[in-house]
């Protein structure tokens, strides 16, 4: 930049033919030396800073950001004219006449497989839901160490049927996971779900302390985060809920939405005081690929644990749907024969716009196999 000279200076310069030293070009050597030196100093300072940087400073002790569950639904791939809720019926299998328990389990599994396949066919085909390379999480209800005949837990044959269906559709891995609070090994063993899942080719994931993470829910009861059994969902691309249909002494009915309660870490019993609030939050927290309500064995009273075969009713339906709210609503009134208004959590979900009640126009309930 040239410096403004006085008139006398300007005249002297013109007369003498001199050069304004301020306008003299910087010699190349000087320029390179100055720029190089500055760059070296700055680089050295940055290098030294990086060298002595404390990676385990405050940044290291900060808690990791809370996890959020992905949206596992595939509603955008479904044909709008296809039903979103399908009820498939099949005559109950009588235990008499089988040579062994394994043979009976295989027959029941085959029945479940055909029923679920028929339901998915009505909804657009299994390929719309499971694609090649998927990692699928199947969430059964394995809350108690009880025999599956008592109807308090998911039927093992339904779980194995779902696992086989997913693997056949090209899933890379199927993880069967639940979080029974007390003695998970015993629960998976006595409900026979663990054995059935392993035999079908799934990975059974039981809870361990390191498998839990803070999960953001942002609902009305869990406003921020809660410790959840997150590990199975870390790499999952699809999630399927498989639940029994049963009575519950607090929330009146346990079907597919209450099934997600099993993911909560302790002390989850504190939510029993606001059971409808917490269950309705699950509609926001979890967007499953689809859910299955196994209505072939219903626990009609004394739920959620049951304890007597007298409380159990054999039925003939498996309900498959993409919206937990609709499936639950249908099962409560049609299978458990309870007044719909008793199920407060469904009303809460609908009022908040997180789910919708079932409608005849997108329900198909006359499929028989």
């Amino acid at each position, binding site marked *: 930049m040239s410096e403004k000279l006085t008139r006398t200076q300007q005249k002297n310069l013109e007369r003498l033919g001199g050069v304004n030293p301020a306008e003299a070009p910087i010699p190349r050597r000087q320029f390179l030396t100055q720029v190089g030196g500055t760059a070296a100093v700055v680089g050295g300072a940055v290098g030294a800073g990086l*060298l002595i940087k404390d990676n385990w400073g405050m940044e290291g002790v900060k808690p990791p950001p809370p996890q959020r569950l992905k949206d596992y639904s595939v509603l955008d791939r479904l044909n709008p004219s296809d039903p979103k809720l399908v009820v498939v019926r099949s005559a109950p299998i009588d235990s008499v006449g089988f040579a062994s328990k394994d043979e009976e389990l295989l027959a029941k599994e085959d029945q479940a497989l055909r029923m679920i396949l028929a339901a998915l066919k009505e909804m657009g085909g299994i390929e719309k839901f499971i694609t090649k390379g998927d990692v699928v999480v199947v969430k059964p209800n394995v*809350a*108690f160490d009880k025999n599956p005949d*008592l109807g308090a837990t998911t039927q093992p044959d339904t779980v194995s049927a779902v696992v086989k269906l997913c693997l056949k559709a090209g899933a890379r891995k199927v993880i069967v996971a639940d979080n029974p*609070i007390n003695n998970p090994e*015993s629960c998976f063993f006595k409900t026979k779900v663990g054995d059935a899942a392993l035999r079908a080719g799934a990975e059974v994931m039981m809870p361990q302390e390191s498998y839990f993470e803070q999960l953001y829910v942002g609902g009305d009861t869990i406003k921020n985060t809660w410790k959840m059994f997150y590990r199975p969902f870390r790499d999952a691309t699809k999630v399927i809920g498989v639940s029994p249909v049963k009575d519950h002494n607090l929330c009146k009915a346990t079907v597919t939405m209450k099934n997600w309660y099993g993911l909560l870490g302790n002390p989850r019993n504190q939510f029993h005081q606001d*059971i409808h609030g917490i269950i309705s939050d699950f509609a926001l927290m979890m967007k499953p690929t689809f859910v299955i309500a196994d209505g072939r064995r219903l626990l009609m*009273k004394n739920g959620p644990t049951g304890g*007597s075969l007298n409380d159990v009713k054999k039925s003939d339906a498996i309900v498959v749907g993409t919206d937990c709210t609709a499936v639950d609503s249908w099962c409560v009134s049609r299978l458990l024969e309870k007044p719909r208004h008793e199920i407060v959590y469904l009303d809460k979900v609908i009022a908040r716009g997180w789910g919708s009640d079932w409608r005849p126009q997108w329900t198909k309930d006359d499929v028989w196999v």
Partner: protein
Amino acid sequence: MNLQDLWVRLGELYQASTVDRVTLVSSGVALATTPLAFAVLGRMKWFQARRGRSLQTPAFWSVVCSMLLIMGVPAIVLAILVKSEHFDKNRYEFDPNQPFSVADQGRQYEAWNLLDATYKLDEAVRAEQERLAKIRKELTDGVKKVDDAMLVLRESARGAPRVIAPLNGVLESLGSLRKAVAIDAPQQLVNLTAEPAAIASSSPGTAASAPAMATNVPPPAVAAPPAAAGLARPEIEAILASTPEPQKPLVQMLPLEDLPAGWELSKLPVKGAVKYVESFNADNLFEKMDGGAESYIQNGVKGMACCSYHPKGNPDGEVQLFVFEMGDPLKARGKFDAEKPDKANPVPIGEGAYVADGSVFVHANRYYTVASIAQNDPKLAEFSKYLATRVAGLQAKEKSSGPSSEDLFSLLPGEPKKSGTKYVAKDVFGYSFLSDVFLADYEVEDMTFQGFLRPYATAEEAIKIFDQYVETAKKDGAEIKVLENSKAEKMVLSSNIGLIDVVFVKGNAVGGANGASTEKPAEEFARKFAESLPAQVPLIGGSAEDRSTEKSADAEKEEP
């Protein structure tokens, strides 16, 4: 400090930490290179500044002063670095708040030494503890292995009476060793009082394998009874030892030994341990039953113990036994009635029991027992009944004082046709204020209704509840008609959507008929009921004072 000391100090600093090293080197480099840089830059006319139309070199001393100022920066950093190594150690020397004296300095020096020695001592103690723990673990493992071997040896010795006496001595001497390593469950000694024939026959395999020892034994006179199944006493002792104190009586009620032949306890598939029994208290019952625990908590559950059984060779044929200790006998009855199906098959066990598809449900004293099966198998059903009977037998031994629930049910009129009786703990007839009510079903001319009775601690409390009932019924749109009756303080007839209730208060009790479809039979029933009721109805589950105190405590809890 001479130059050599300074050099040593700087060497120590260099080795102290990475940060110190970097600071030291960079300060040193800065100090050393600044004069050189100034010399070079001066030669390159870097410092020349324009004065008017020409560039002029500044005075030499001004350049030197600038250089010293710049060198001051790394020098200060170096000083801070050196000082930081010593500041903490001697910080009290310069603390103006501390009295400063030679004696204090000495004390501080001693304290420092003492602290240092304490740290060293602590470390030594920790190392020694770890060494001892390792030895103890090895010792315990060794004793456990010896125990296992002795159990096999003891079983074998049953067929060889000559071995029994010396073996008992060995077991006795092992006892002191086991106690020393804190494995305090005693080894069961061989029963020397048993007949040799019975001993020999209890283990035919081992008797045959030791013919030389058995030659002196006389032949068996009678066949020995079959060996009872179940756990050994030491195993039960071990289970009890690991059970929290409040649940021990519940675990003791579980049939763990002397089971019928062909049955055994189911092991829980738990990692790293063999477990037969689980027990819970009211706070952690949810771990076992999740939401199901709430209904027990509402009935004042104090604890629960459970275990499972199966026929030998058939693990699927499981019978699960749950023993719940409820708040009082009334609460046990309440839970029993709440779960009772409409068509229950009553059985004479405890104070009340029924069978539903082979599962047995019993209430006795303050206990509620469930023996549950999951297969329709008569053998399992028979065993569940056996378990319930055995447990209820133990529960009945605990006698509770005061009136029983049956005493109160007997106060409900016998006519018209009276069928099932029921105790309801909460929300009776949908009223949150009405709890702990005794009910019975009545049938008259194709019409059914329920007679009910609820005693309170005081007459004032009964009248308060009665008034609350009338007020709520009015709010619900019921038509209330006051009935004149000399046998009760107050009596009303409430009619709403075709259902008739006749409710009265007499003394400390509220009673009446609920859910009738015509007025006359309900009114007649209520009048007769009021007439037959004594002026003071007894309370169950503690004295009147206790109940009042409990209520007020509950009320306090509910207050925000």
